């Protein structure tokens, strides 16, 4: 017999109120909206010792998901180790007292969860918890799969999942493909995707290139910015490839969600497509087989009443907006690299960073415009596109300073 729903609810609500991610989420809203909490959904996943339950509690109208595990109190310390913060408390499962805790802290339960989330299609031997964010926790299974276990829920399909599924449908391959999805009572509880070991965030590669460029310091001979290497040519072929992937992402998005024509007087082509919307160097991964789009962002604001209607309206915009986001993140990472250098070198470093940014933005755009069929989405004239892109990047800079 598992613990009763009432017993679980009594443990989960105070636990939630101790969690930084819950408090962070709640802090965004007017306290008066918080309202009463109530148990909205309960599934006993594993009945026994150890056991596991999926619990959804709403606070006001905002649903939170907690995976509760339990064991005999004597066994729990060995399993939880130093993760004492994961403990919910003690309750009775009919056969005596059990200690309840956040199941993600228990490797055995977290491993078993993969089979549940994938409806029995996947299993693993090892698991590691890699990230714990406000909206979700990430687990990696056997360095082969990763699972996002959502904390703040919203009605299925979650936009991220919808995008992944649609892109998969139209055959876009440069992403971490969805392997399984755990959906229950109208909510997406978890998403299982491919994991590519050894993949590196675009940001890390950009910083490597900048470190090399700015670190040349004394070697004036190499600092002529017109040289390939002198302006960070080491990244430019990567940016060209990323531009190509971005182009094919946009064509896939256009195919999956359609194209809207923008009212315009002068531009030859002005269309809006469902854009990525949060495209920057942390969202792309360099793998041994090239670039992949890692994710689509998962803002915890989504699902909130009031902002709901607007957030769920998919974002249609000019495809150049995504390129501008990415270019702007090139600018940001360059500024970051400059700041990390000694102030006395800032003048020279800024000059170099600027030509680095220009060069790599050019390669990104060049790769993008080289994609077959991209002319249906943007003007293929390179200098016009470059000017528009530059303006969009300048807008972003202006907004943040």
């Amino acid at each position: 017999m598992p613990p009763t729903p009432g017993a679980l609810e009594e443990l989960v609500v105070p636990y939630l109120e101790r969690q930084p991610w819950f408090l962070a989420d709640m802090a965004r809203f007017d306290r008066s909206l918080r309202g009463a909490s109530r148990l909205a959904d309960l599934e006993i996943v594993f009945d026994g010792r150890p056991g596991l339950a999926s619990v959804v509690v709403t606070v006001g109208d905002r649903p939170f998901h907690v995976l509760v595990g339990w064991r005999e109190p004597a066994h729990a310390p060995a399993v939880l180790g130093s993760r004492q913060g994961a403990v919910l408390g003690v309750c009775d499962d009919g056969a005596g007292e059990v200690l309840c805790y956040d199941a993600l802290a228990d490797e055995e339960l977290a491993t078993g969860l993969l089979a549940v989330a994938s409806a029995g299609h996947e299993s693993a031997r090892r698991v590691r918890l890699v990230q714990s964010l406000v909206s979700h926790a990430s687990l990696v299974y056997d360095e082969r799969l990763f699972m996002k276990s959502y904390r703040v829920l919203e009605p299925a399909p979650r936009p991220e999942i919808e995008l992944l599924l649609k892109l998969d449908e139209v055959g876009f391959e440069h992403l971490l493909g969805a392997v399984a999805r755990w959906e229950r009572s109208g909510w997406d509880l978890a998403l299982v995707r491919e994991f590519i070991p050894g993949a590196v965030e675009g940001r890390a590669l950009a910083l490597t290139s900048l470190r090399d460029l700015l670190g040349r310091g004394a070697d004036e001979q190499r600092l002529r910015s017109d040289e390939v290497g002198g302006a960070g040519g080491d990244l430019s072929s990567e940016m060209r490839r990323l531009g190509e992937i971005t182009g094919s992402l946009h064509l896939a998005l256009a195919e999956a969600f359609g194209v809207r024509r923008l009212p315009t007087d002068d531009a030859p082509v002005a269309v809006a497509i469902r854009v990525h919307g949060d495209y920057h160097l942390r969202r792309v991964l360099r793998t041994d087989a090239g670039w992949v789009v890692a994710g689509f962002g998962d803002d915890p604001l989504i699902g909130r009443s009031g902002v709901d209607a607007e957030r769920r309206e998919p974002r249609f915009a000019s495809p150049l907006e995504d390129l501008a986001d990415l270019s702007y993140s090139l600018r940001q990472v360059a500024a970051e690299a400059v700041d990390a250098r000694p102030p006395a070198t800032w003048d020279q470093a800024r000059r170099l960073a600027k030509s680095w940014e220009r060069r790599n933005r050019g390669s990104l755009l060049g790769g993008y415009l080289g994609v077959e069929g991209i002319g249906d989405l943007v003007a293929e004239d390179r200098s016009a596109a470059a000017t528009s892109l530059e303006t969009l990047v300048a807008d972003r800079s202006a907004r943040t300073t």
Partner: protein
Amino acid sequence: MDDPRWYERAVFYELLPRGFYDSNADGIGDFQGLREKLDYVEWLGVDCVWLLPFYPSPLHDGGYDISDFLTVAPELGNTADLVAVIEEAHRRGIRIISDLVMNHTSDQHPWFVESRSSRDNPKADWFMWSDDDHGFGDVRVIFSDVEPSNWTFDQRRQQYYWHRFFHHQPDLNYDNPEVVDAMLGVVRFWLDLGIDGFRLDAVPYLYKAEGTSCENLPATHQLLRRIRAEIDASYPNRILLAEVNQWPDAVIEYFGDGDECHMCFNFPLMPRMFMAVRREQRFPITEILAQTPDLPDGCQWGIFLRNHDELTLEMVTDEERDYMYSEYARDPRMRKNLGIRRRLASLVDNDRRVAELLHGLLLSLPGSPVLYYGDELLMGDNIYLGDRDGVRTPMQWTPDRNAGFSRADFAQLYLPPLMDPVHGYQAVNVEAEQRDPSSFLHWLRRMLAVRHQYPQFATGSLEVLPADNPSVLAYVRRVKAMPGSAGGSPGSAGGSPGPAGGSPGPVGGSPGSDRGPTSVMCVSNLSRFAQPAELSLGRWEGCSPIELLGRVPFPRVTSAPYSVTLAPYGIYWLELVER
């Protein structure tokens, strides 16, 4: 010496007989000289010497333009001198393979002289003649710097002849069975004299067919299988090492089902090692490793950093080639065809740390390493010499006259030794580096000895480890678990440091030990700055890695990511024992 799979574990040393040591003071290295220097080759820890072409030749292409396949160029000695080298090398457990050019001859070879003399002589069809130069229009010109076409007109015969390389190197016509028989005769001749195998030059181009690229044709593979069958039947322990400058999926064909070549060079890997270091990130290497197919049993890659040719950039994209030129060949004189003609030391700006890093990769990535003579000293090059002569200057033995290479007059030398203040023989030579215990030469010798102790480097599987830092390249070489064997440990297999690394017995297995299979983990920092990295070593949880050179125990692997910090261009080789 009875070990049919010796090449899987061997370290090769490529040398130019003409440039190694001159015993008779005529300004040209010779076989007698090589025999005198075998002490050094043995001391270094080399298992097999690859001799660059030593046949009679007008030397318009470094001896690859052969005018007689069945003897030794007179300036190098005679066939008996070569046999003496082979016998002396074998006594030391060192094998000797020779270059063999099957695709073409020199235009001064009697076969071609006869063939071009008329249209109806007995060798008229030994080469590829045509009335026009339109045939094989889809075929690329390899030496695009100097050759406008693959066809050249012959005034005497009033016809065009086909040449895949220089116009003075006419291609043999393998559709003629007499040519096949003649070349098989050449192969048998040298094997009968005791040569341990051949490095086959320019293999992909042997057979031609209209409408194709004239590369990698089925008939070429068929001929290679025929040669291999003959070796297997009559010449045990001999090998074929093919030069196939192609992408990995085409190269793999030259292993056949283990019934063509024993070894092929891994050409695409080489420029990417340089590119990875210059870009300070691992993807150029890991990308090509991911594309490199598994080999059939008994096959091995030959891997190298530099050789007698230019650093070929055929196997990289145009954009990458521009990048390599701008980084490694700022002076146009450094460029040659689609490549960069420089020695290792010059390519790395004489940075000892980078040279160590690159050699660390060379000795630990899958394949048998091939060293190029002089690179163990960090010898430099002379870009003002023509063609590829800049990387073929005399071996630098001592700070004495002519680098101790020859007692001839300076003006008599086949090429001048390096005399510049950085790489010149006064500073860079065997004598000085042997005397200096911290020299690059001693470092490399120690690394070769360590490599010989661990069969993992030779035949282990490769697994690239995920690392969060793109400047860090980490991989594990693991021996395949042998049924009934408890695991591997240094000394239990693979032999002691030294030539021809021990018995061919199963790798792994220290009887009575309860240890699992031993792996070697190689971690390299491709950056000139110190770097941290976190590695996931889940499989080795609980194990304490041991550093191979100093046997230093490292912190135990736990379930958390394993943290390492590396000095600029630093490398670690660590032993991991599974539990």
